[in-house]
């Protein structure tokens, strides 16, 4: 009976919206499939070399990096979330949103800034020497696994912080108050009540952290860590071996999918939901005396380390180089490129998100959920893998369309799609549509179905209902989603480096290139531009959050 239901449901809804949604999902899936298909080709001899000498390192280093960073972000993020949610102390309302600021700084920028600050000629050792202290330089060796973990923890903890804080503030009230009434010390309340209670929120936050770490190229490469993403780069550009790089991507993706499936299976046994309806707000307790100042100090220290210090250092360097870097037309061109690519991709993403979100809520069938999950899978797939897949797909398409190109007079076998801006934008869409989609979905959830239904009954079809009723009502969420997506794309590095068209640099890639060329001071200016854009998203977050709470 349900089969008939599905067929009827599809027939009833089979229109422009559904078709476009399926196309969108296909666009996301095809490149990933393209990677898997390549595994069936014959490997070349370089692959054997990689398998024997490098593979184990890649796996181990990727795993260690994720594990240690995960632990670090849980400790830092949860403790800060707890502090801010449960207590009042000087400057708490400032810290509450300011602790999100590290998200504005892409980790790779922090990586080379810190490396330079802590280097032998950097500000830290220099100052110590001027005070007559000769420190052992090995203490300042940040370009290592511990250093990378430090950077990632410091710049990705906001994911854990944000989700855990929201959870604690809204839903932990009764548990915590009970624990307090029973006379438990704050530390024991934290470890025996708060941590276990927040498990779903922590899990959600750590998942985001893990995806960021696995996707990263800048930090790992700069600090000499051999992660899978770095391996894909090295093999592709260093050894000119796209085939082996694709194989690496396939292995990498398998690993990630296995972990995701494992996590789902584990979660099925516990019916947690980070946002169960039950609302139990937590009232903050006032801290007094020493503990109040300690709390403020802790938060302040984190902010100084993660934000104030590196930004100040970048500003100093920018001051030294403003003449050579900023004034040139090159910088303007960088900015234009960055904005152009990000704007086009964001526009496409928001359009597709709206279409799919609307379709999913109309269909009321598992197909809808499948579409939604497929679309958002791109966020969990590291940028390098997406790059490899998209390139493979586009190259195949170009080959297939070659006769058409010839007919249009474009030459023998030109590569029109591959290495074009369209390819980069496609990859951006795949990677970041989840951000836009989640925002739109949340917006739709807030208005529910009644307005849409009223409009349909009053005689307007799906499309007109969208423009006259739904869009005006979800406008806030759409705008928020647009800004967040735009900023994510501006900050993006690995995917852009791999797929950018000829002579096309963004602020992010240029900053990293300067740093890699050992011209750190020149990297400051574009870095600050990226950070400035990132700060916009923090402000947006802040505003959206305020509106939700009021």
């Amino acid at each position: 009976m349900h089969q008939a239901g599905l067929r009827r449901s599809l027939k009833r809804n089979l229109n422009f919206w559904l078709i476009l949604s399926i196309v969108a999902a296909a666009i996301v899936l095809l490149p990933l499939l393209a990677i898997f298909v390549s595994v069936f080709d014959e490997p070349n001899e370089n692959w054997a070399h990689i398998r024997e000498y490098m593979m184990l390192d890649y796996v181990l280093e990727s795993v260690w990096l994720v594990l240690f960073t995960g632990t670090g972000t849980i400790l830092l993020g949860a403790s800060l979330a707890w502090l801010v949610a449960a207590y009042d102390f000087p400057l708490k309302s400032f810290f509450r949103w300011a602790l999100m600021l590290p998200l504005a700084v892409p980790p790779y920028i922090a990586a080379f800034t810190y490396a330079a600050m802590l280097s032998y000629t950097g500000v830290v050792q220099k100052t110590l020497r001027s005070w007559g202290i000769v420190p052992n330089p090995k203490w300042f060796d940040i370009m290592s696994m511990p250093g990378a973990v430090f950077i990632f923890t410091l710049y990705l903890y906001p994911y854990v912080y944000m989700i855990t804080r929201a959870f604690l503030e809204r839903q932990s009230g009764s548990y915590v108050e009970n624990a307090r009434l029973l006379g438990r010390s704050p530390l024991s309340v934290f470890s025996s009540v708060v941590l276990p209670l927040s498990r779903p929120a922590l899990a959600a936050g750590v998942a985001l952290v893990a995806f960021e770490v696995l996707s990263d190229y800048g930090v790992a490469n700069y600090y000499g860590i051999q992660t899978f993403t770095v391996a894909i780069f090295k093999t592709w550009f260093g050894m000119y071996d796209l085939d082996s790089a694709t194989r690496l991507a396939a292995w990498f993706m398998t690993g990630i999918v296995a972990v995701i499936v494992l996590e789902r299976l584990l979660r099925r046994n516990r019916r947690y939901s980070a946002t169960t309806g039950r609302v139990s707000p937590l009232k903050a307790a006032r801290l007094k005396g020493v503990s109040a100042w300690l709390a403020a100090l802790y938060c302040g220290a984190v902010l100084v380390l993660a934000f104030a210090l590196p930004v100040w250092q970048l500003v100093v360097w920018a001051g030294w180089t403003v003449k050579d870097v900023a004034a040139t037309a090159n910088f303007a061109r960088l900015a234009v490129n960055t904005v152009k690519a990000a704007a086009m991709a964001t526009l496409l993403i928001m359009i597709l998100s709206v279409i799919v979100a609307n379709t999913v809520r109309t269909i009321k069938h598992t197909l809808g959920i499948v579409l939604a999950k497929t679309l958002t899978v791109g966020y969990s797939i590291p940028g390098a893998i997406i790059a490899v897949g998209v390139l493979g797909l586009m190259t195949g398409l170009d080959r297939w369309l070659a006769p058409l190109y010839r007919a249009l007079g474009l030459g023998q076998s030109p590569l029109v799609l591959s290495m074009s801006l369209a390819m980069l934008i496609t990859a951006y869409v795949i990677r970041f549509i989840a951000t836009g989609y989640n925002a739109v979905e949340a917006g739709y959830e807030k208005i529910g179905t009644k307005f849409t239904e009223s409009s349909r009954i009053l005689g307007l079809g799906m499309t007109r209902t969208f423009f006259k009723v739904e869009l005006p009502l979800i406008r806030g969420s759409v705008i928020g989603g647009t800004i967040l997506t735009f900023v994510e794309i501006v900050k993006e590095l690995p995917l852009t480096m791999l797929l950018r068209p000829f002579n096309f640099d963004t602020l992010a890639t240029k900053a990293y290139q300067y740093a890699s060329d050992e011209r750190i001071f020149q990297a400051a200016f574009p870095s600050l531009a990226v950070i400035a854009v990132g700060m916009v998203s923090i402000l947006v977050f802040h505003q959206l959050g305020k509106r939700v709470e009021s």
Partner: protein
Amino acid sequence: MGGSIKKAGFLLLTLLLALSVLAGCGAGSGSDGGSQSQSGISAAAGGGQSATGGDSGGSAGKEQVVNVYSARHYDVDAKLYEQFEQETGIKVNVIEGSANELIERIKREGESTEADLFITVDGGILSTAKKEGILQPVESAVIDSRVPERYRDPDNHWIGLLTRARIIAYSKDRVRPEELSTYEDLASEKWKGKVLVRSSTHLYNQSLVASLIAIEGEQKVEEWAKGIVANMARDPEGGDRDQAKAVVAGIGDVAIMNSYYVGHLSRSADPEERKVFEQIGVFFPNQQTTGTHINISGAGLVKHSKNKENAVKLIEFLTGKEAQTLLSAENFEFPVNSEAELPELLKSWGEFKAQEANWAALGEYNQLAVQIMNKAGWK
């Protein structure tokens, strides 16, 4: 429902149209969206801007141009292009990219390419470009007289502009220059825990190893690489300059690095870096044996260049005494033109014996070099 389908069709068409325009934009020019042509025959208008940011005026018409695809990104290059423009009135358009990106692009563009000159660092890459068939011989008596044969491709497909040496930087406090001799020696017991060098992923090291393979053979070099790894003071991290800093910091005693970085340290905006410069000595290895490894920057004349004369003029300019002197002074590389004046620092290093020129080997043995370093555990 009918109205919905109509709207659907319209929107779909618009999307497709937008995508194809994008594809066209991208294929034509990746830089600014100025010209939206469909094929690679976009006038150099869209092809890029000179580093000084002049307007991307078109080549269509009477304006003289030369289009340079360059994998060198040093500021001094931009200054010279500007000077060339002022002297000759020929506009220099520069497109930057990584070397293999540029070669790939020139190959792909085939006969309709915009490129006139391909400028890059590393002899291996230059010989690869020649092998890929994208270059043509440069015929100029002027150039031939200024640039010795060993700094040119045997068939003149590319002309060398500058060289750099991979030298050993050592701590003036802890090491006497008499203790140093060859690259091979660095793998011996006495340097255990004292050697600093950057990652094997960098082309500078790959070319060094490739050159050694050409001279000594795979087997010996494999052993040598293992020896170096065993002697490393720490896992490779950072760039060449960081190795020098690590020497001064006492992490190691000797570092393998490129000569021009020493020059940059001497003139850094950061006083701390200048202090580092003062504490390191520069040693040219293998003087008694096979010579210090050098690498070369060069310009290749693109096979299907549309502005051949202008391109040759630019090469002549860049190999002329003035330009060579300026390049050397600003970037601390060694000029190929013996009439150029050296900056003080380079003069102080004196003459040295360089490896015999075998640029093709750098390209030929690159993959093998990478594999050897991987096997040896050179990170």
